[in-house]
């Protein structure tokens, strides 16, 4: 049997979902029997080298770079999975969504209590190298088509394992009550 090819990324997230992924402990040995990793921070492959079967997306989109990566994943993955609350609904980064971007940046770089004296020119970081912030943080499915969503902050390791196992083997997904949680 050909191994399924998997890619993962963390956009506007905290890598907590990836940590939870690694929490499958010894099952990781079973996993590598089933899958091969392509682009992913886990193996540090930076660019897609081939089409993948499954892409796991952690985090929502808070800047243009996130959007480009997400679109790249959509183009290279047959199945795309949002995993974790940030990918599904913006998560904690989206706390800023109720405040206009200008206000957020003004608070962070100009008016906030932690801004002390060293920004006299009132500069908001604008280097060409920096990604451009989006007006709000977007859940992934509001940018590209997402096939599955695994909730949790982070999603429980069992949930990630069960979902991947079901996707790769084609077996039905077992979802006992305890493993679906939003926190």
């Amino acid at each position, binding site marked *: 049997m050909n191994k399924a090819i998997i890619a993962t990324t963390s956009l506007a997230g905290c890598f907590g979902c990836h940590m939870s992924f690694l929490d499958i402990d010894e099952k990781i040995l079973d996993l590598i029997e089933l899958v091969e990793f392509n682009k992913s921070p886990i193996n540090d492959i930076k660019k897609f080298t081939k089409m993948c079967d499954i892409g796991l997306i952690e985090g929502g989109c808070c800047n243009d770079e996130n959007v480009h990566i997400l679109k790249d994943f959509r183009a290279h993955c047959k199945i795309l999975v949002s995993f974790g609350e940030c990918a599904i609904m913006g998560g904690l980064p*989206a706390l800023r969504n109720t405040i206009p971007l200008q206000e957020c940046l003004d608070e962070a770089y100009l008016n906030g209590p932690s801004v002390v004296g060293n920004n006299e020119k009132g500069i908001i970081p604008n280097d060409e190298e920096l990604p451009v912030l989006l007006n709000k943080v977007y859940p992934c499915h509001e940018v590209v088509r997402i096939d599955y969503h695994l909730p949790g902050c982070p999603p429980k390791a069992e949930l990630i394992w069960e979902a991947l196992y079901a996707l790769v083997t084609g077996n039905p997904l077992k979802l006992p009550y305890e493993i679906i949680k*939003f926190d």
Partner: protein
Amino acid sequence: MNQLIEFRLDGVVCMGQKGQYIVDAASDNNIYIPTLCNIPGIKPRGACRICSVRVNGKLMTACTTPVSEGMDIESKSADIEDLRKAIIELLFTEGNHFCPACERSGNCELQALAYRYQMLVPRFKFQFSKRTVEASHPKLIKDHDRCILCKRCIRAIKDEKGRSIFAFGKRGHQVEINIDTKLSKNMTDEQALEAAEICPVGAILKKEQGFKDPIGQRKYDNEPIGSDIENLALQ
């Protein structure tokens, strides 16, 4: 007074008392109809619409409609269950429900319903409505982000003269629940706790306490909401 009547719920013949609300009569027959705005013992309001059932072909709220002799009620049909799920999702997208950062997570009835209904695929666009957090009241925090406008607090919490401490403000999608600045100053600790507990979500919190139940021991960590009613049926 207690006149027994017969009605059918999803084809099951049930007994109830005349004048009893459908949701209570169902519960007495160990059948769970999900509710959110309802509080047993207090005049219902039918605000959230989650308990919608079909009575003689028409959608009615089970919390406000009394059972009557021979009533034929549909509750578990696929379309009604999907309607309920949709309402839960609408509430999630209307407010700003950041479960991971919420004190009520695990004990939240909205979240519990989402678990029960396996809310896994977001169908509606998240609104990210501009809401505020009010911390000026001595005993309470009001986090409007999480408020689902169920009116429980409005209906249940009054001062000693029967005046409202909580009330609606504005209308339509701008509706919000406000706390009376003057009356909230005189709230006792018990009253503040009662207000926090009556809130199905984490919109009303009592100050200086929180996260008292460890993860794994919270109300809805291991058993779906409604299990208490349904488990009786299994015994």
